[in-house]
């Protein structure tokens, strides 16, 4: 009797212990994670408080002589320019000492917002065996549309590091090529293997806050919610690309000015 009791007691103890152990695990178990959704909804932004960053990008140093592009490898290209001398855009400096073709964007500070890529495509044209525009911004997931105004065959060959690489031929009169860049990347060079001088630079961002300087060297990034941002400027001047960062805090409806300066390298 005694023995059986002991066994029973012992077994009961074991069961208790097991149950206790099991319980404990049960308690620490996490809740099932929320089902994954495909695209997170864009963060609503109060348009009445948004501010702006403007600025100018200047070049420090003597204006370099931009290398002349010789297109005689393809007479079609030469004809398009009708004898005008074409120079490399990467080395261009505006007459007022500012830099065109600088890509300025919000590098950090906007991570807490989610933006839906615009439904309009960003268009890159091939005209006179040159890319237009030379520098462009696009949001990750936005459609990138390549058209050609040239009566010669081009191939569009973006050479990204973080995105998928592709290289598509586009014959004269062929349909536009539509592609997307899935991941942010500063900057994706684009080349045409048949006209090796052709070069475009694509800044792929996760937010719509970017701008490219023009012939006056200025830029303006609008619609920024109040907050602190790192603004980065990228320029191809003097080589394969250099960047410069600045931090700026924007209050509601505030407009701040941020200037950048690049040297020849």
């Amino acid at each position, binding site marked *: 009797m005694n023995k059986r009791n002991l066994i029973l007691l012992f077994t009961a103890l074991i069961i208790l212990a097991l149950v206790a152990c099991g319980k404990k695990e049960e308690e620490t178990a996490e809740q099932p994670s929320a089902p*994954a959704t495909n695209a997170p909804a864009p963060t609503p932004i109060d348009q009445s408080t948004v501010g702006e960053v403007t600025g100018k990008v200047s070049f420090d140093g003597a204006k370099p002589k931009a290398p002349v592009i010789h297109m005689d*490898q393809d007479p079609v290209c030469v004809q398009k320019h009708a004898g005008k001398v074409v120079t490399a855009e990467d080395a261009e400096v505006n007459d007022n000492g500012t830099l065109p073709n600088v890509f300025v964007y919000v590098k950090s500070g906007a991570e807490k917002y989610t933006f839906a890529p615009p439904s309009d495509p960003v268009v890159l044209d091939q005209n006179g065996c040159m890319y237009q525009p030379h520098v462009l911004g696009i949001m990750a997931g936005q459609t990138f549309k390549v058209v050609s105004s040239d009566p010669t065959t081009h191939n569009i060959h973006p050479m990204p590091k973080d995105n998928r690489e592709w290289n598509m031929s586009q014959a004269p009169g062929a349909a536009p090529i539509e592609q997307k860049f899935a991941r942010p990347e500063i900057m994706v060079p684009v080349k045409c293997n048949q006209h090796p001088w052709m070069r475009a630079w694509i800044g792929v961002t996760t937010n719509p806050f970017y701008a490219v300087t023009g012939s006056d060297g200025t830029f303006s990034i609008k619609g920024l919610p109040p907050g602190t941002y790192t603004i980065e400027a990228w320029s191809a001047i003097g080589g394969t690309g250099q960047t410069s960062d600045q931090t700026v805090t924007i209050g509601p409806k505030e407009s701040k000015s941020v200037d950048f300066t690049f040297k020849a390298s």
Partner: protein
Amino acid sequence: MPDTSEKDPVITSSLGTFLVVSSVLVMLTLVWALYNEFFGLRPWKSYERDFAVRYVKFLRKQIPVQESAEKAILASPDYQQLDQQVKAAEEQVKDKSDETDKQIAILDARFSAITETFTTERAYVATQVYAIEHTSLDNQTSLQNKLAKHEAGPFRVSLPTLPDGKIVTGDYTFQQLQDEFNKVQLDKANMLEEKSELLRPVSELRKKRDAYLTDHLNGLTTEQMRGVLKKTQDASIEIKQINNPDAGIVDRCETCHAGIREQVVITAKDMGGKEVFVSHPEPDLLTLHDPEKFGCSPCHGGNGMALESKERAHGQYEHWLWPLHPMENVQAGCQQCHAMDMVLDHAPVLSDGKDLFQRRGCVGCHRFQNYDPEPELIASVQQQLLLFENQRSEAQRNIARSIQLGDAAPDNDTARMYYTQADKLRVSISDIDGRIEQLDRRSKDLLRDTKKVGPDLKEVRVKMHPDWIPVWLTNPHAWRPSTRMPRFRLADNEVKAISAFIWQSGIDAALPTQPQGDPVKGKESFETRGCMGCHSLDESSPHFAANLSRVGEKDNYDYLVRWIHNPRERTRPYCPFEKRDLTEADYKKHGLPFVFDLDHSKCPNDGHELQVEQETIMPNLRLTIEESRDIASYLMTLKTKDPSSYAKADYLNDPSLKAQGHALVQRYGCAGCHEIAGMEDEGRIGTELTKEGSKPIEQIDFALLTREAREQGWYDHKGFFEHKLAKPEIYDTGRDWKDRDPNDRLRMPDFDLKQPEINALTTFLMGAVESQIPQRYWDAPEDQRRDIQEGWWVVKKYNCMGCHQFMVGQSSRLMTLPRYQTPEWRDQLPPKLMGEGARVSPDWMEKFLANPAMDSKDTDRDGVRAYLKARMPTFFFSPIEIRKLVRFFQALSGQPMPYIPPKLEPLTDQEIAMARALFTSKGAPCLKCHATGDPSHDKFATAPNFLLARDRLKPGWARRWMLDPSMIAPGTAMPSGLFKPVGDHYVFAGPTPDIFKGYDGDQPELLVRYMFEITPDEQRRLMGMSADMLKTSELIRIQEPVHRLTDSRQNRMPSGPIAAKIAGR
């Protein structure tokens, strides 16, 4: 009655205490036994229970997550579209399918309607037939008549009838019933087949739709997961065992590691932190090595049978020879079966170890099977040669005997027999001669393939600045931290003696004085020709060949020029037979010029094969002497101080030091890595390491550290290797070691290995074991996979991966250099070799590897890609290595050998006109990038000349390449989308010339056939036709003789005029 009885023990004494104590003891024993039964001896039971609990919980949590993911996919537009397609297809065939179903239903009804009557009558007929067969002859006739009458019927049946199922009643005879019965079944079968044919498109679409779900869903479907859940819930607690008696494998690991083969990916986090329950991190490996066949312990180590504790199961106790490999050395387990592999997918650490063993020169002192096998192979070839020579002379003796016997034979038959025997022997001699010839060549080739890890020390006098030598010997790492040369623990006098011996045994010759080159041009050449594929100029990242940042401090300029111009050039040839370096006098003696190279490699004294090359891996870039001077001039500028600032080492010429130096060089085994005069045949001084990982631990000498190692827990192979590699002299310890005879001290030098290198080498050595697995389980294939194994050794030996990409995801060294990061320079990278075997003809490749210039005279060029600044060098591969490489590439692409080119349909005149029109049409960009041989055009060229296609390419590959090159070489300059599919063929995607109107053939195929027929003449014509497209002003100037390619194999190589044309020179 007086109480006289003695005290009755039954009454007076009690066993109570004893019984209580024993019963308590018994109880305790029982408790203990029970405890041991359930927990002590069988800890695995709790593991299994625990797993089931945790896994069920995890699955329950996971199923809803997966369900919602599944729902999202089901709701995705792509899936919906597929689903729509399925539905549309279903809709499309619905009427017909319903109609068929209806008909089948009618047939079914008809069948059942006829069945009853028919089967009843059939039974009756059968009994009657039986009766007829078993009755008397008299009765038979009457019974037969009766049966015939019965069979005539009529049987009235009402049958539903096609097409509308109307019931028709009719009279049938038995035969008609039977026919109808069979016909209905046949009709139904036909109808069913018709239906499945009708539904085939639907079921295919459905399959596509379902595949979309499984492809896009990460992991199992909800339904499959529910199955897993049920299986887990129903599982019983029992030992789970893999048993392969064929290999003697009994592994019970999965009893505790219950999740290892689960298809659901289980992480430790999923199981509440229990690492033991995770699924195998590399399921691919389990696919390659079916656990039912290979078990677990052969790869991982451990005692697969043991279950009583984790320590026992993992084999982590004394006297178990195969403890579980720790995580950082887990790839050690691959080596025992993959010793033949130099490069192993899934085992980067082990592959690294294998590589380091060669690259760091371990192989100079330690034999390891398959490493540097040439000297041994030469010895074995010599043995075989002796054997054949003996066979030959024996056969010759026997011939004479047979003829003699034949001549003296008593009859013609016997005579003929002897004569036949003699003929057989004569033929066998011819066969032996053929074999001997092959062995002679093999021996010569093997001599060519023999390489040393370090430079040739016979050349020190012509190469080095003498004062630098002792500095280097004292501590190579102080002078150049990343060098492969290890640090020997030498006393000053030993350094002096070795330096003096080396210096004095060097060849004393004068090299031609070289004028200075242009260091600026030299720098550009050095950085772009491909030197950086192996060499570096700094201490960063491990590299294959020397860091050259301080060459200017030690080298002689004239020597450097010769070295760059042809690194294989020796000052003197070495005769292995005479065991000495020959001099000019040896040649003069025989009236021969002092010329020795791969074509003049016989010893003038005795005809033996000479070593005519430096035993270096470094290839010849076929640079002009001017460019070599430029590079040498540049390299000479690389120095941190002037060589004259080193302390004078006059003792180098002291003859009294030579003997001591010789003894030291012998003791330290310098000749293992260097060629040293008089020591060419020195053996390796270290232990063979092929099976070192399973050497009994008692035989491994921890010396005085044995106790310490035991106490600190590193008394095992891993501990020994790691400590030895980190500090080779570590076991030279104790009070007296400094007084010990130097010969008793450890000789292994310090390599200054980094931790990852130590780990890789340790992994390699731990895996180097006497395998317990039968040899047939090893990876020693006899088919094309063997070619791949053998090829990797050559690829690694010559560092082909310094310049080429062999696998997607693998970077060549050049690809990682800053220069090659821009879009312009990326197109200057040497070609990727993925799928190379499918691309090029092996015959062509063999010739290209032998001479990448593809021209015997004009060698300052690249035979294929003249537009690349980096150049494919000449490696002077022996035929052995060329064969291995060619087979390697063909095998990697699964191409059969020998290659028999497919016959291409010759082009008709119309087709030629069409191909020309397409090639030169405005939209076609081919000639913009591909070289043509016209210098003014080719300065822009970035792709090979089409003239090469015929001999070099395989037509099928050429077509695939045109259609989508990015599927063959991601990132290539050749664009995709040149052709678009129309129906079952492809057409050019740009504006197509008018001549193509009405042509519905495959246009890329047409171009391939054209490419394979193109001649220089035709190419010029093309250039002329596209004059408005391309700048061709200088084109017409080329008026060289045109060589029409013919089909004969002899003429297939573009040498001579064609090759010259290709190069445009």
